[in-house]
C-alpha cells in the first residue's frame, strides 16, 4: 500500500505535538462518532508493480483495431511524436488554472496561441480557452445567443445525435424552447427551417460536415437564420477546415466543434476538446476562460485571464454558464498539433482524408448492393447501404478492421490519412467476399 504520504512516525508526532493533540483521530472530533467509517469495503492497497500489471491486464481486454473506418465524432488521425513529448512535460501536466499570472505565463501564452490558431482555423475573431467537448460547446452556444426577446433555439436533425442529446439536456435544464429541424436527403430541410423560425428565434445550430458526412449549403442556412434575426452556430470538423470553407465564410456568428482530431487519441471518448469562437461583437457572450495580452509594470508583454466578469466566480447566479475550467492540456495538444502540422501539413492531412474516403466510397459502391445513400458532396465520411450488414462488419472485425457505424440511414464510413490504400483494398475485398 502506498498513499504518497511522505512523513514518518516521528514527523507526525512532532506535528501532533505542535497542534496540541495526541492523535490524528482527535482532529476529527467534530465528526459525530456514529458516522465514522469503520473500514471501507474495498480491496487492500497494492504495490506499483501489481497495479501496473493489473491495469495492463484490464487494457488488454479491449480490442485495438489496426484499421479504423469508423468516425461519428471520434477520429483516428496521426499524432506527431513531438505532440506527445510536449504534452507530457511535467510542469504543464501538473499546473492548475493560471490564477497567478506571473508564474503561469507558459500556460497563459500557450492558450493565447491556441486561441489564435482556433481563430485562424475557423476564420472567427475571438476564441475561448476551450470547453469540455464538441457537444458541450454546441450546448453552451445556445446561452450565448439568447436575448431578452429572442429565446428560442433551433437545431438541425443532421447533427451528431450525441451532440443533439447534450443540447437537448442543456436546453431542457434552462427551460429553453428547442426545435429540431428535420432532415431531408441527408441535409437540413431548409423550407422547414424557414417556416419554423419567428421573431423570437435566438439561434440555429448545424454541423459541417454533418453527422452523415454530408457537406450542406451553410451559406443558405446562415442567410435563412439571419433573415429571422437569429444567430447562426456552426459546428465544424477542424481537420476539414484546412481545406474547406470556414464558418466565417458561411456567415456563422459562432463556430464550435470537437477538437479531438487535433492530436488527441480516441481514448474511449475522452478527454477531448470543445472549441468555441465568435465575432468581436459577441466576445463578451463567450463562456469559459479567455486569455488576453497586456503588459507588466515594466512594460513587458504578458498574458492574463481576462473578461472575467462574465464568469461564475464573479457573476455567480447571474452567470450564463457555470464552467470554471477548460481542457487546457487538450488545448495545448491541439496547439502543438497545429504548429507541428503547419498550414501545409493540415491541408495535406485533410486532402488525404477526403481523397481516401472518396476512394473507399468508389470501391465499395462498385460492389453490387452497396450504394451511396445520399447524393451529396462529402469530406471524409459517407453513408452506404450494406446488405448482410452484421456479417460484413464482423468479417471486417475478424480481420482487425473496425468497419463503418450502423445508423438509421445506413452504414457510416470514415477514412482518415492513417489508413493506407492497401488497408482499404483489403477491407473492400472482405466486403466483396461476404456479399459474393
Amino acid at each position: 500500500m502506498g498513499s504518497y504520504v511522505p512523513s514518518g512516525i516521528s514527523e507526525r508526532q512532532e506535528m501532533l505535538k505542535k497542534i496540541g493533540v495526541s492523535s490524528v483521530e482527535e482532529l476529527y472530533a467534530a465528526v459525530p462518532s456514529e458516522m465514522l467509517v469503520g473500514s471501507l469495503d474495498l480491496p487492500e492497497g497494492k504495490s506499483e508493480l501489481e497495479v501496473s500489471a493489473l491495469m495492463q491486464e484490464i487494457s488488454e481486454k479491449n480490442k485495438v483495431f489496426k484499421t479504423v473506418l469508423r468516425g461519428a465524432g471520434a477520429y483516428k488521425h496521426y499524432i506527431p511524436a513531438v505532440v506527445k513529448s510536449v504534452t507530457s512535460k511535467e510542469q504543464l501536466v501538473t499546473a492548475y488554472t493560471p490564477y497567478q499570472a506571473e508564474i503561469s505565463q507558459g500556460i497563459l501564452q500557450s492558450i493565447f496561441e491556441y486561441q489564435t490558431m482556433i481563430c485562424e482555423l475557423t476564420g472567427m475573431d475571438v476564441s475561448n480557452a476551450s470547453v469540455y467537448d464538441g457537444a458541450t460547446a454546441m450546448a453552451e452556444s445556445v446561452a450565448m445567443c439568447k436575448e431578452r426577446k429572442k429565446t428560442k433555439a433551433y437545431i438541425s436533425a443532421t447533427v451528431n445525435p450525441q451532440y443533439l442529446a447534450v443540447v437537448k439536456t442543456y436546453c431542457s435544464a434552462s427551460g429553453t424552447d428547442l426545435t429540431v429541424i428535420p432532415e431531408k436527403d441527408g441535409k437540413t430541410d431548409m423550407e422547414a427551417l424557414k417556416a419554423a423560425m419567428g421573431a423570437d428565434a435566438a439561434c440555429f445550430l448545424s454541423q459541417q460536415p454533418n453527422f452523415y458526412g454530408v457537406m450542406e449549403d451553410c451559406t443558405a442556412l446562415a442567410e435563412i437564420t439571419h433573415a429571422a434575426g437569429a444567430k447562426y452556430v456552426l459546428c465544424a470538423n477542424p481537420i476539414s477546415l484546412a481545406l474547406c470553407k470556414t464558418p466565417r465564410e458561411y456567415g456563422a456568428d459562432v463556430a464550435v466543434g470537437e477538437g479531438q482530431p487535433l492530436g488527441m487519441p480516441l481514448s474511449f471518448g475522452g478527454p477531448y476538446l470543445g472549441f468555441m469562437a465568435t465575432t468581436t461583437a459577441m466576445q463578451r457572450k463567450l463562456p469559459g476562460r479567455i486569455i488576453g495580452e497586456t503588459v507588466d509594470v515594466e512594460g513587458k508583454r504578458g498574458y492574463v485571464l481576462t473578461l472575467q466578469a462574465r464568469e461564475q466566480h464573479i457573476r455567480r447566479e447571474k452567470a450564463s454558464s457555470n464552467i470554471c475550467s477548460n481542457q487546457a492540456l487538450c488545448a495545448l495538444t491541439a496547439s502543438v498539433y497545429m504548429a507541428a502540422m503547419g498550414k501545409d501539413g493540415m491541408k495535406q492531412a485533410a486532402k488525404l482524408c477526403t481523397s481516401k474516403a472518396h476512394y473507399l466510397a468508389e470501391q465499395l459502391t462498385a460492389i453490387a448492393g452497396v450504394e451511396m445513400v445520399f447524393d451529396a458532396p462529402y469530406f471524409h465520411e459517407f453513408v452506404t447501404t450494406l446488405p448482410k450488414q452484421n456479417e460484413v462488419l464482423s468479417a471486417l472485425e475478424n480481420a482487425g478492421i473496425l468497419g463503418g457505424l450502423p445508423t438509421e440511414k445506413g452504414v457510416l464510413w470514415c477514412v482518415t490519412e492513417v489508413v493506407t490504400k492497401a488497408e482499404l483494398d483489403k477491407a473492400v475485398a472482405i466486403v466483396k467476399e461476404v456479399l459474393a
Partner: protein
Amino acid sequence: MNNPKNLFYTKSHEWLKKNEDGTAYVGLTDFAQAELGDLVFVNLPVEGDPVTADEAFADVESVKAVSDVNSPVTATVVAVNDEVADEPAKINESPYDAWLIQVADIEDTAELLSAEEYEAFVENQ
C-alpha cells in the same frame, strides 16, 4: 465627497438628474465607481427599452467585480451614452458627467435622496 446638490440619489448608488423637458439622466455615483474600481465594461440597454424603478437596467464590470445598475425611475430609455460604453474609464474620471441613459415618460420613482441624505447614508454604510 462631492455630490452635486442638484441631483437625486438612490441607496443603490445611482444618481438621477431631472431635465426641464421632463427627461432625466441616470448615472453611477462617485462612491459607486470608487468601490468598484477601474471599470472595464458597461452593458447598457438600447433606446426604447423600458426601465423599472429599483430594477436593474445595466451592469458595469471592473476587473474583479460586476454590479447591477438599478433604475431610480420607471420610464423609457430615449438615449444611451455610447461614449461611456466605448470608454468606461469616463465613469471613474467624472462620474457625474458620465450619464449612462437618458429616460423619458417617467411614471414612477424609487426612493430618492438628496445629496446630504445620500452622504449621510454612505457614511453609515
